[in-house]
């Protein structure tokens, strides 16, 4: 049997599978046969090394059923478990929703705090040059003492804004890293469940 006859026969026998699955299987065997031929073997010899097309099709269909059963069994619950889940849903569902609400509120509060820190920094940072410039202007006029006081306040605001900037940056970075870590852990949690 030559390669094309083998593939046509295999395609016919795998007609119960999806078009995508059939296409991928045919590609796989086509490549396999070509690799055997590359070793110096004739096409018919390569096809016979692969095996009988009816046995191969039968094994593919069997493996395909096993894979589907494996997926189905992962989702199966016993009847008793389903009854318990349904009867207990007012309790566990309410608890789960409350837990999510508490975690979410804490998280929202944390982010609100971080977000509100930045306007504080901005206002202090803006006030510092205003204070210094205003102080200089006043000190050349009649209100000299007020001018010096304003300059002093402006200068101290410069220092305060530098401290505030570092604090805001550290707090924001820490919260972003915390968010990323929690997100990764949740993703791993769901990823492990899928692998299991």
């Amino acid at each position, binding site marked *: 049997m030559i390669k094309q006859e083998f593939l046509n026969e295999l395609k016919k026998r795998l007609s119960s599978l999806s078009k995508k699955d059939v296409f991928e299987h045919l590609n796989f065997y086509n490549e396999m046969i070509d690799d055997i031929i590359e070793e110096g073997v004739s096409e018919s010899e390569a096809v016979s090394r692969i095996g009988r097309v009816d046995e191969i099709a039968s094994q*593919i269909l069997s493996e395909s059923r096993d*894979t589907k059963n494996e997926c189905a069994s992962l989702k199966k619950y016993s009847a008793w478990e389903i009854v318990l889940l349904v009867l207990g849903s007012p309790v566990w569902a309410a608890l789960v929703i409350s837990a999510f609400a508490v975690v979410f509120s804490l998280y929202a509060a944390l982010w609100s705090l971080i977000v509100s820190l930045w306007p504080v920094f901005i206002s202090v940072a803006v006030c510092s040059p205003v204070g210094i410039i205003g102080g200089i202007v006043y000190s050349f006029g009649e209100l000299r003492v007020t001018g010096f006081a304003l300059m002093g306040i402006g200068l101290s605001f410069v220092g305060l804004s530098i401290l505030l900037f570092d604090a805001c940056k550290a707090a924001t970075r820490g919260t972003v890293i915390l968010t990323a870590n929690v997100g990764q852990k949740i993703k791993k949690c769901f990823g492990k469940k899928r692998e299991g």
Partner: protein
Amino acid sequence: MDIQLKRGLLDVCVLAAIKNEDSYGYKIIKDIQPYIEMSESTLYTILKRLELYKMLTVRTSEHRGRLRKYYHITEAGLRKIEDFKNEWREVMSIYKFVIKEDTVND
């Protein structure tokens, strides 16, 4: 050999075959055949499953005027091999115990 045991071993064998360099279907079978028997359709299923669990990735490259799929192991695949090695150290120590007990009873 027990079917479930063989299935688990075949998964790791395929990963081991692509551990040091990317490989393709026929070469994987040739590399594994001296140690454990595996048909082409079984290999196909294993490769699909390992890809689904992100233990390997697939790329298509041109080879002598035709396309060939190459399989590349991922971090998850390497971890699977390490887990297997750790588990089998335990199995080997139990096996040695069983053999020892057999020898004593004989």
